[in-house]
Every structure is written in C-alpha cells, then in structure tokens.
C-alpha cells in the first residue's frame, strides 16, 4: 500500500488512504526523507485522517520522520488525528511531543505558511 506524495509549492503532502502495515509506514518515512532532498521541500504534511488507530510503532515512525526531515531542513506537521485516535494515544502514553500537529490539511498548510514567513524559529 504505497502512500501518494504530492508536491505543492515548497511542501510535500502525504495523504494516508487506508490502514498501513509497519513496512508501509517505514517506507513512507524513507520516501518522504528522500523527496525532501530531491524536491528541496521546506515543509511536509502527513495527513493521517484515514488512520483509525495509532500505536507505538506508528508514533515512533512519525516522530522519527519529523526529526529526520527537520535535519534535512524541512518542518513536518501531522494533520487529521481523529478524536478517538487522540484519546487512545493519550491513554497509551503516546504523545508526539516535539512534533507539530494541526487539525486538518487546511490548518496544516496555514501552519507551515506561518512558519516559513520570516524566520523559522524553533521550539
């Protein structure tokens, strides 16, 4: 199950369409990191609206993805975590600390636009 990655201006947008295996998720991470370099992207959006569960492997992979793209000069924002998924993540003790989040694709784009404007300050 390959996740489509779209380029939109300075950003890459990966929209997860269905449940992913661990291998799919790792693959997504690698593709995005590679594409950040190839497309000289400055922002990455991973849309997880379609994910109905997020376990410790998924969280670790998304965290690693955000940190790796960061080291390559691009900011990642995770969008579309569903309320019930957020609920179960918090119960599991999984927090995505240090990773930017936004409600949905639209908010994610706004967030990146704001970050790119002027200086990209960091937490």
């Amino acid at each position, binding site marked *: 199950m390959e996740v489509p990655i779209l380029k939109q201006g300075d950003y890459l947008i990966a929209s997860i369409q269905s*449940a*992913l*295996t*661990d*291998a799919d998720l790792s693959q997504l991470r690698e593709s995005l990191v590679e594409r950040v370099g190839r497309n000289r992207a400055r922002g990455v959006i991973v849309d997880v609206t379609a994910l*109905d*569960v*997020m*376990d*410790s*492997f998924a*969280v*670790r992979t998304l965290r690693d993805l955000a940190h790796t793209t960061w080291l390559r000069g691009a900011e990642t924002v995770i969008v579309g975590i*569903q*309320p*019930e*998924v957020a*609920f*179960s*993540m918090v*119960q*599991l*003790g*999984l927090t995505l600390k240090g990773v930017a989040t936004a409600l949905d694709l639209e908010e994610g784009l706004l967030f990146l636009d704001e970050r790119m404007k002027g200086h990209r300050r960091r937490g």
Partner: protein
Amino acid sequence: MADDIKITIKSDVDVVDARRRGRELAAQLDFSAGDQAVVAAAISEVARNILSYAGHGEVLLHVMEDAERPGIRIVARDRGPGIADIARAMRDGYSTSGGLGLGLPGARRLMDEFQIVSSPKRGTTVTMKVWRRRRG
C-alpha cells in the same frame, strides 16, 4: 459470536488484520468510538510483539457476555523466547529492541484486566479483557 476469532500472526499484514477485526468486534458490541480505537491499539501492540520477538504466533478474540456489560477477551500467544523479566518489560520505556517500550505498559493501562504468562520453554501469552463502559 460463540466462537473465538483466531488470527494467525506471521507478517505485518496480519497485525493490521488483527486490529481491524478487534475494532469491528468492539463496534458490534457498541463500544464507544474511543474504546474501539483503544481495543485496536492494544491488539496492535501485542500482535506486533509476537512478530518482533517470537516471529509468529496467534491472536484470539472472544466475546464475553456473562457480565453486566459485554466485553472482549484478547489473547496473544506465541512459542517464542519468552520474557525473562516481566516486571521490567512492564515498565514504561523499557525495550530490548529500540522500541518506545510503551506497548505492554500502555496496553495494561488501556485494558480492564491484563495478565502475562511467559517462560523460555513455553513462550508468551498475554491475556487482556475490556468491558464496554457505561456512558458518562
């Protein structure tokens, strides 16, 4: 629903399958959306552990209808190397594989009942139970 659902775990596709089946079962039993995600997440953790540490095994899902509210019993079992120090494995952040080490302790927090039986000879069996919650 009398019979157990049995999912053989031998590749990461089976982990996805197991959590999907668990979620469906929870939905059938009218668990809240949040608790459906909780059931799926707990299954995902123990099923992945089978794959990571034992190579293969199975997940069994069973509907419990004898209590006041319906529940699901999840059994994940393998004949792998076993867990040497269970108390340590249950600690937040402990992992022998560079994982987050939140799988087992997280699953325990998610479930109403949680039990591990493990030995180097007979492998590992995790049994978890969760009941439908009263609506607040």
